[in-house]
């Protein structure tokens, strides 16, 4: 084999599969996230549609070999359009007993199970809580088991590498990746290129990982273990240039893009918190795009500094997760009152309280809507997929600056870390979001309003003749001076409400997948998009009168939503919470919508959606 080879030769039988779900699992130290990501990239480059789901262990690195330390990465690759990382794996790669134990229940009978035999030492078995060795007690008989000597083969491949034993064993994951690359006929180049880039500064590691990778590939090719290779043919995908992207990365790029198009400097005030920290990390690398990132002393200072920057004229952003949202609420209320643009990104995680920091959930919606004292309305948007985080960031910036209002973006752990192919926008198609500060003194009052948007003007310090003061006490209509007058207060409260309600005019008609009316409408928001879409498509194929509407605007709601809901016999609202959107649509439209609530820190499975809809249909 030469480095230059793009696909490996199909020297064994090739079995074609439409879709395959592979889960890589191992100890936190085993590099499973990297293995999964590389396999995904190679698959994307091979033209498959893909969806991924990383599953990190709890924050602190648990002792090696324990259940608490298991790290997983699932990828779904398909010849079709897909929407999720897959419900259950077809293939499970488990690098140690703990990884096996933590994941086996998800593998269906006859699923492919690839293990590193040597990792099943007595010590490791004990750490994982196995009384008997599953390799020998017959408990794995119902799977297609491939029990390999990964560690030994890696060691053999690197025997003259000069590396210490510890470093040699760190290459196990590339051996495994090589094997999987062979098994699914992925191109070798992307991984080899990655290795070259990643270890550019360390020749011996570069060489070792490259050799381990190739050894794994060769092992598949030459060993008698695998009767055939699999082929997942390219999907029919919209033409264009793609890149695999996580939600957090897409959000960053979206914010930066929007700021550039608005011709504003971007200012992020933030405090690290899982799973939002990566946005801070990534934006910190975009200083060349006029991006300032400020790691504040806490969340209150993070949003405070952002609000200050907004007053100063920057495109202000703050990012956090649940606990931080609680802390920021007072300042967001001030942003509402002073009518300054502010993007608040909440990358939701399992709650309440510290909850499940590395798991996904959608349970901050009501807090976003109502989590501030007083009537303090804000715009709330939610992206549906990782790449939609790019789009929604642009939408948020447009609305925040046009309406001079805080805008919440409700992403979640699943979108943040999950990845999908992103059809890259043409630069020339990007919208013009140019913002003009007001500089004209004539007719100026701090709270004078645009008659259409009801927005007040953005005047930044440094503008001569427009000096003014703003603050959190109720303002007099127009002048903005402090006013305790009863009728003025009522007017201002209603005006703020009305302004946000007016954002509804930005919302396109609600798109339905499925018939315009029927038995069941599945109404979703946020990251449940994938599972719901896949589920509804499947139900439609079965010929059922089921449709899907997925909303990105949670406040205001789409103007046509009431009408849409009224055309269906049942409305089902799947949410990863106790029923937040459900409450809102019931209150708003008085429809007897039904909730479907999964609160397990992990996304819905397609099958769960399908079953629930069918149950609803059966109930009549």
């Amino acid at each position: 084999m030469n480095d230059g080879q793009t696909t490996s030769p199909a020297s064994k039988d090739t079995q074609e599969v439409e879709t395959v779900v592979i889960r890589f699992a191992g100890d936190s130290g085993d590099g499973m996230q990297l293995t999964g990501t590389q396999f995904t990239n190679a698959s994307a480059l091979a033209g498959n549609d893909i969806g991924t789901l990383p599953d990190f262990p709890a924050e602190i690195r648990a002792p090696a070999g324990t259940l608490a330390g298991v790290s997983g990465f699932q990828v779904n690759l398909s010849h079709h359009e897909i929407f999720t990382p897959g419900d259950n794996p077809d293939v499970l790669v488990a690098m140690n007993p703990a990884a096996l134990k933590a994941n086996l229940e998800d593998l269906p009978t006859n699923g492919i199970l690839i293990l590193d035999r040597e990792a099943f030492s007595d010590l490791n078995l004990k750490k994982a809580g196995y009384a008997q060795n599953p390799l020998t007690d017959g408990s794995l008989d119902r799977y297609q088991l491939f029990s390999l000597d990964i560690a030994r083969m890696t060691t053999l491949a690197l025997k003259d590498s000069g590396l210490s034993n510890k470093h040699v064993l760190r290459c196990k994951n590339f051996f495994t990746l090589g094997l999987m690359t062979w098994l699914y006929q992925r191109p070798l180049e992307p991984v080899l290129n990655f290795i070259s880039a990643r270890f550019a500064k360390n020749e011996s590691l570069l060489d070792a990982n490259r050799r381990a990778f190739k050894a794994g590939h060769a092992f598949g090719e030459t060993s008698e273990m695998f009767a055939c290779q699999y082929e997942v043919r390219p999907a029919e995908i919209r033409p264009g240039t793609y890149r695999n992207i996580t939600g957090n990365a897409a959000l960053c790029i979206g914010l930066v893009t929007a700021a550039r198009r608005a011709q504003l400097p971007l200012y992020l005030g933030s405090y690290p918190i899982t799973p939002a920290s990566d946005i801070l990390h990534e934006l910190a690398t975009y200083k060349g795009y006029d991006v300032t990132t400020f790691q504040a002393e806490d969340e209150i200072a993070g949003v405070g500094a952002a609000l200050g920057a907004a007053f100063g004229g920057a495109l202000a952003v703050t990012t956090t997760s649940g606990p931080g949202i609680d802390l920021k609420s007072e300042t967001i209320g001030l942003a509402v009152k002073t009518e300054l643009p502010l993007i608040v990104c909440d990358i939701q995680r399992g709650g309440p309280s510290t909850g499940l920091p590395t798991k996904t959930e959608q349970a901050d919606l009501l807090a976003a809507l109502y989590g501030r004292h007083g009537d303090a309305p804000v715009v709330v948007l939610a992206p549906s997929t990782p790449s939609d985080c790019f789009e929604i960031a642009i939408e948020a910036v447009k609305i925040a600056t046009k309406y001079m209002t805080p805008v919440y973006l409700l992403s979640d752990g699943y979108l943040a870390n999950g990845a999908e192919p992103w059809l890259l926008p043409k630069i020339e198609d990007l919208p013009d979001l140019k913002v003009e500060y007001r500089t004209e003194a004539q007719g100026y009052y701090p709270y004078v309003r645009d008659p259409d948007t009801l927005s007040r003007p953005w005047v930044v310090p440094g503008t001569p003749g427009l000096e003014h003061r703003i603050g959190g006490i109720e303002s007099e209509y127009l002048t903005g001076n402090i006013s305790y007058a009863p009728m003025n207060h009522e007017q201002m409260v209603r005006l703020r409400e009305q302004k946000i309600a007016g954002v509804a005019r930005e919302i396109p008609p609600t798109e339905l997948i499925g018939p315009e009316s029927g038995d069941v409408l599945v109404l979703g928001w946020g990251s449940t998009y994938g599972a719901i879409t896949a589920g509804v498509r499947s139900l439609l194929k079965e010929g059922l009168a089921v449709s899907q509407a997925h909303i990105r605007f949670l406040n205001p709601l789409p103007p046509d939503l009431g009408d849409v809901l009224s055309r269906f016999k049942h409305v089902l609202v799947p949410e990863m919470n106790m029923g937040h959107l459900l409450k809102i649509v019931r209150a708003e439209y008085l429809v007897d919508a039904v909730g479907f609530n999964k609160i397990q820190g992990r996304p819905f499975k397609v099958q769960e959606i399908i079953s629930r809809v069918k149950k609803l249909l059966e109930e009549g």
Partner: protein
Amino acid sequence: MSIANLNEPAKLTRKDFESDQEVRWCPGCGDYAILAQVQRVLPDLGIPRENYVFVSGIGCSSRFPYYVNTYGFHTLHGRAPAIASGIKMSRPELSVWIVTGDGDALSIGGNHLIHILRRNLDVNLLLFNNQIYGLTKGQYSPTSEPGKVTKSSPEGSIDNPFKPLVLALGAEATFIARSIDVEAKHLQEIVRRAHAHHGASFVEILQNCNIFNDGAFDDVTNRGTKADHQLILEDGKPMIFGKDRAQGIRMNGMRPEVVRVADVDANDILIHDVKNPVLAYLLGQMTAPEFPTPIGVIYDVDRPVYEEGLQEQLRHAREQPNAGDLEALIYTGDTWTVS
């Protein structure tokens, strides 16, 4: 404060800095005097009016921005330093002033205060210390003396107070000063010095709340007694005070003490040095009745200014190839094309 905007400003007067809003403090409140001195100093600093921003928290003192005809932001209780940080970082050319109270800055806002000081943003922070919560009608504050009887401490407060200057020093402040509401000239001078300092300036202003804590600073404001109770500091000058400048401060081992100048070797009297943190610590620690109350600039040193470090990184990044190029932002990493 650096003078960032050098456009020839029109000659400004005190009047230019008076807003159209009626000043609403209790008659006799020390805040009036502070407002007047600040309004007197602002026109002289060579900064166009529109480049001033006053940021405050919540409290009587925090109403200050409404009365100054510049840009202003009356924010949330305790949060002014955080919000001001965002303003200054995003607009380093602005002259940013934070006005706060002892409750606002030292109670709810303590964390933002210590962090803005350690980061050393080039802002001026004026803390109106009346040793009471004025706006909420008279609870003890983190600077109230132990045993203070207030609405919330009917048997006397059991809280040990902060010494604001010492806390600021502990938080790595680069400029620390103290003045008094009624010492018009001195206060003006200190405000000027705060402005002149390049980095975060922390100024404690002793302020009389004649409604809820009247006379808290009588010893240092009363014409009859103040000479004996003020230690007026000047850089490079000996620490001498008292009616006939008869008393001084000297070290006794590693502890300061008050001595009669006549009784000691003149060389033993401590010489003030605004660059010496140990002296700053000594001075910040001094409290009545054992010691006179030091006023003036206690500490004034240079350290890199936060937003300048930031600007430097931004500048450097902007000089990189592809900086600002959206194509490079979006079309990067492992991309593939489907046709």
